[in-house]
């Protein structure tokens, strides 16, 4: 029982980070139709900002300022670069965001070097939680790092917040309609471009949250972006391109798979790729992909 519980918890914790990155990716793809190869770099930027700001002013300042900073970065990128690529081919979109990812990575490397920056957790987030004190079905002594539990909570709260935003606000209604047919909305006189900018900003904010809470458990180094981008892309594809529930489902699946194969390093290294290949062979559209999109 203890073993099973801990494996599930670890699975949740692994999926939490994938989920946050994949959520931004799939939101931007579903709405703007852009495959953003620089999304990993945005997450990495969030992690670097978080380290630097929390070192200088403390984590609580970083908690407020990093999402705002990344929102601004996102807006600038969308207005200054991405929007010129809506009319160009998907290949060009991939190329320019790939170039952007390299530039962001290299800028960070130039300023902070190629090595790992230590990310000190705030005092309220370090240490362990004695789970057996709260959960009577666990036997004996069961502890778990507090920060990882916080990451899980933050991640699922972010998912919930995004769903609420998309389901129950006028903004969300327009964005969801835009995901289906942006031309029609433009025709009806809805200013879809400004909303697109904001969507890109929201994607960047989610990346910032991932950087803030994921940074302390990953290595904050210039390769981090690409390292997490690749599995997150797989999450998006397996979930079904442009499907938010699909991304959540697929990241849970990957997290559990990684957690339950932890004992066998040889399998763990390739398990998500194997899963992805099998799932896509059986369901080429992904778990919750919509018909028509990407076909």
């Amino acid at each position, binding site marked *: 029982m203890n073993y099973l519980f801990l494996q599930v918890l670890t699975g949740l914790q692994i999926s939490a980070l994938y989920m946050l990155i994949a959520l931004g990716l799939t939101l931007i793809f579903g709405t703007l139709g852009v495959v953003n190869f620089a999304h990993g770099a945005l997450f990495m930027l969030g992690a670097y900002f978080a380290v630097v700001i929390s070192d200088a002013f403390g984590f609580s300042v970083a908690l407020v300022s990093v999402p705002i900073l990344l929102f601004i970065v996102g807006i600038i990128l969308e207005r200054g670069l991405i929007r010129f690529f809506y009319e160009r081919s998907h290949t060009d979109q*991939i190329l320019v965001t790939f*170039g952007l990812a390299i530039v962001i990575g290299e*800028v960070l490397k130039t300023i902070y070097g190629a090595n790992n920056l230590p990310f000190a957790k705030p005092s309220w987030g370090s240490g362990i939680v004695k789970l057996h004190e709260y959960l009577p079905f666990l036997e004996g002594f069961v502890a778990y790092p507090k920060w990882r539990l916080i990451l899980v909570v933050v991640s699922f709260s972010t998912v919930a917040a995004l769903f609420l935003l998309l389901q129950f606000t006028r903004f969300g209604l327009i964005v969801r309609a835009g995901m289906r047919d942006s031309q029609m909305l433009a025709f009806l006189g809805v200013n879809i471009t400004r909303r697109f900018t904001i969507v890109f900003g929201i994607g960047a904010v989610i990346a910032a949250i991932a950087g803030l809470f994921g940074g302390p458990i990953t290595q904050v180094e210039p390769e981090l972006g690409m390292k997490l981008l690749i599995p997150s*892309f797989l999450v998006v594809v397996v979930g079904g391109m442009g499907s938010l529930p699909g991304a959540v489902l697929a990241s849970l699946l990957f997290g559990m798979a990684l957690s339950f194969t932890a004992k066998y390093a040889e399998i763990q290294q390739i398990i998500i790729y194997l899963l992805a290949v099998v799932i896509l062979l059986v369901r080429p559209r992904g778990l919750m992909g919509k018909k028509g999109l990407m076909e």
Partner: protein
Amino acid sequence: MEYVVSILKKFPLTVFALVILTMPFWFPWIGGYGGLATKIMIWALFALGFDILLGFTGYLSFGHAIFFGVSAYATGLMFKHFSDEIIPAMIVAVIVGTLASVIIGYLTLKKSGIYFSILTLAFGEMLHSSALSTFGGFTGGENGLTLPDMIPSMLGIEMRGEVMFYMTAAVLILGYYIARRISDSPFGLILKAIKSNQERLEYTGIDVQKYKLGAFVISAIYASVAGSLMVVYEPYVGTEYLRWSTSGNLVLMSVMGGVGTLIGPIIGAAFMLYFENVLSVPLGEEWLLVLGLIFMAIVIFLPGGFTDGFKLIYKKLIGKKPDGEEK
């Protein structure tokens, strides 16, 4: 000026071969050195094959390091366990790379371009991480496959220095000749039509899937030959050969040079390696940042790459307007 261009147009292969074969004489003038010339040949071959996929069909693979790397490992293992003769090693390596491309191409080419880019990237990382851990016993894991004191040879002739350069140059010239023939063939015409309008092509009675797979496998064969030559040139298989960054570099050089032109990616490969090894001395650590910025500028302002830039400059020089209606 016009005279030079007319010669280029009439005898592209001869001019190409001359430029390549005289490289040992002129390359040192601009700061190059022998080993770098060989390395440029190898990457040029890699990029040339990639152009048959990206340039003709428009399918952007982020996993071409797979074929380069798998073939490099196969070559290294052949050297280690069989003999230092390069012919059997290269044959086995190309067969392995080709088989990998048939399987991966079949699995990834079914859907649109975006899907293809992401899945090839994922396949690449799967093989990279399995080479590091799952198959670490064969591949040397994190250290790469080391082949101490090995000098590969062909029919007893040691493959190093100028011999290696001329052998590689000959392969590149042959590769360029074949690529040009493919480009002018009916097969090449249909590949280019995939990029232009895939749906129309399907409704014109063409089995697009098979043509895409054909282009993918041909480009993977080029990549396999290049990967194998890399190990012949430098008897060591680095884990980065399989890594996404190798695929990424390939994409960078192809796009900078100008895709779809065959010569463009070769120029791009030469530029990038020259940049990395010669210009990086004055630029220092930031050379990759500069390269990234150049790349972005090209994607944004000059999607045809250097070759398109040359054409524009040439048209300006002889006083014609840039590409109008008439070809």
